[in-house]
């Protein structure tokens, strides 16, 4: 039995395109908050010379991830920028010198136990690369008196249309993924490892199954092509049958879920000691002439990335950071790429008249059939419109993970997922 969901057109036109490095931009702007948690304090000042891998932002808070420079060059200033996420945050602007000189002292971390492993992971600047950006060291640093974790799930579902970054990671960085798994297994004392891959990536399933067969305790699980297969709770249920309860985390059910690209990075980091300074992104959408996968230094502007893919800037009207289902619209193409951006999609102007208009809810129940966590979006929408907090609480709007399936299927073109987010905000006030 698997949870409900919807069938999407994959549009993964970049799946067979090997990742290319983006030409070094002449300037980057690195935000001090790229993950969930506290923003970092800036460690450099205007005029400083910085090198690749140099820590330029850190915080003493546990729920925070340090930030490293992705380039070598000179700090031209500290600016305040309104990021895609809607938060204002300090950014370190660096003019690159083109040398990409790496800072001294980059060497594999010495890890002896779980604590030192978590400390090393924190120092690497690692956070969830799938999109949410949860600090990985916090995930690994669970209280082992409270939780007994026996299962690690590597999330390689990549259920969002267009995006192929995780797919390329599996094909191009296979060994690092398994190294990463080995480190996590050893240091966290986890027995079972599952790699969940949607069936639309048969080459990755085949390759990883072969590699997994050489090592014990790792199982590749082909998953149905059903959105949102890669959502944490959905993945945990579909692979292990365990239900992550309301307000709980997977560790409550003995499971840790990490993204496959995060895992690959951990493998790389444990081997080289190079912190997180670049990431793989998919550039696609109908306004892009040359869809591709690129390795982007963090802090590069989206515009540079789109330009590399020969985007038609005049003909486009929409740019999305992330996938089309859960990604966030960009309002300024000069915004920098952060650790959580798995792709950027550019779309042409649409013919507005062709799109069906919003009508009243016709109670067709499609949203209820689509919701993976079993909510009733149509009921929630009415409750929100009436500001009916009681019903919103009773009907568990807080469980909505904003996967957008309800809005996608709605024939009346109502913005159900958006209403759920507003309802959650209403309940918080």
């Amino acid at each position, binding site marked *: 039995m698997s*949870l409900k969901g*919807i069938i*999407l057109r994959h549009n993964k036109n970049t799946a067979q395109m090997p990742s290319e490095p983006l030409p070094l931009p002449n300037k980057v702007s690195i935000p001090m908050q790229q993950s969930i948690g506290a923003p970092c304090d800036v460690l450099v000042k205007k005029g400083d010379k910085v090198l690749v891998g140099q820590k330029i932002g850190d915080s003493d808070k546990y729920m925070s991830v340090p930030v490293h420079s992705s380039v070598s060059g000179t700090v031209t200033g500290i600016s305040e920028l309104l990021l895609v996420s809607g938060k204002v945050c300090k950014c370190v602007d660096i003019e690159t010198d083109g040398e990409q000189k790496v800072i001294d002292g980059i060497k594999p971390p010495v890890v002896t136990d779980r604590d030192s492993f978590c400390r090393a992971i924190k120092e690497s600047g690692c956070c969830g690369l799938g999109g949410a950006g949860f600090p990985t060291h916090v995930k690994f640093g669970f209280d082992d008196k409270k939780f007994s974790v026996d299962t690690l799930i590597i999330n390689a579902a990549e259920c969002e*249309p267009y995006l192929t970054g995780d797919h390329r990671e599996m094909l191009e960085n296979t060994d690092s993924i398994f190294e990463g798994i080995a480190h996590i297994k050893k240091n966290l004392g986890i027995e079972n490892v599952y790699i969940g891959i949607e069936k639309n990536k048969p080459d990755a399933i085949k390759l990883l199954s072969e590699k997994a067969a050489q090592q014990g305790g790792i199982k590749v699980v082909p998953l149905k092509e059903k959105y949102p297969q890669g959502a944490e*709770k959905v993945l945990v249920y579909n692979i292990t049958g365990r*239900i*992550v*309860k*309301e*307000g*709980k985390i997977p560790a409550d059910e003995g499971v840790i879920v990490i993204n496959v690209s995060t895992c690959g990075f951990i493998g790389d980091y444990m081997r080289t000691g190079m912190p997180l300074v670049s990431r793989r992104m998919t550039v696609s959408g109908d306004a892009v002439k040359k869809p591709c996968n690129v390795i982007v230094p963090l802090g590069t502007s989206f515009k540079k990335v789109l330009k590399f893919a020969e985007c038609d*800037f*005049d003909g*486009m*009207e*929409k*740019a*999305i950071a992330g996938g*089309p*289902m*859960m*990604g966030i*619209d*960009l*309002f300024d*193409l000069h915004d920098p790429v952060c650790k959580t951006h798995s792709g950027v999609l550019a*779309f042409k102007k649409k013919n507005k008249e062709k799109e*069906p208009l919003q*009508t*009243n*809810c*016709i*109670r*067709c*129940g*499609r949203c*209820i059939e689509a919701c993976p*966590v*079993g*909510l*009733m979006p*149509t*009921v929630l929408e009415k409750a929100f419109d009436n500001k009916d907090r009681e019903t919103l609480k*009773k*009907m*568990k709007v807080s*469980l909505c993970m*904003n996967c*957008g399936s309800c*809005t*996608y*299927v*709605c*024939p*009346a*073109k109502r*913005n159900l*997922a*958006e209403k759920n*987010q507003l309802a959650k905000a209403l309940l918080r006030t």
Partner: protein
Amino acid sequence: MEKLTVSPSPHIRSGASTSRIMLHVLIALMPAMVMSAVLFGGRALVLTSLCILSAMAWERLCCLIMKRPDTTDDLSAMVTGMLLAFNLPPTLPLYMAVIGTFVAIVIVKMIFGGLGQNFANPAIVGRIVLMLSFTSAMTNWTMPKTVTDAVTSATPLASDDKAYSYWDLFIGNCPGCLGEVCAAALIAGGIYLVIMKVICVHTPIAFVGTVFVYSWLAGEDPVYQILSGGLMLGAIFMATDYVTTPVCKKGKVIFGIGCGIITCVIRFYASYPEGVSFSILIMNIATPYIDMITLRKPIGAEKPKKEAKTDEK
């Protein structure tokens, strides 16, 4: 490039739309319309067209008076008009049909707020109002043209002995309303709707199944009961109306069973020979309560302390 469109996720939408769903229903009604023309001649088409046009006219007029955007292009008024026409005898005076669409569209649908806001099925109420107001005109049955001695006669349910074979009932060789006589055409339309995922089979199966079982237990001929009267039309096209029936599958089954029981009670014990419309109307009224007891329990939700009983599972 200067102006980027910003909207909340998701940024893609499925091709489904309200008007497309209504179009599917209209397509599904086509076989029954063709059969009504074959069985009752050109007047059937005249009556159907008049109902469709007047229904759309009423809706447009309402939108104008209420200063709302015109909603006729969602095609729901066409569906209502067509369904009402299918519930009328072929001899009905035309002005009565217009009164019927007035009741359906203006009183039942638009006054409550238009599409999605009405609590009862507009076509059903239109038919019931006509039935009570113009009883003799609404029960003036003629035999189909395909039968040689085409004269006024009783419907299969009203006649005492079984005047019609199963085959007659299945293909529509019997007197009755425009769209209800040919069970085969209605079932074909129903299969189309299920394949196109417009309706799910729960309500029709529960409705027809209940009538079958009840008739069998009550000593009536179950096959005769499910093929005659407006049962197929009601079960496939009226009891599956999204707006006035429960949203959950479980609720749809309860709705279907309720309709079946009420239909049989009216048919067997009341003075009306036919009970499909009344049963659907009564269950329409019960729908909010069925919805209340069939709320879906979210996965992983902590049990609410008080409402534990009303939850599913």
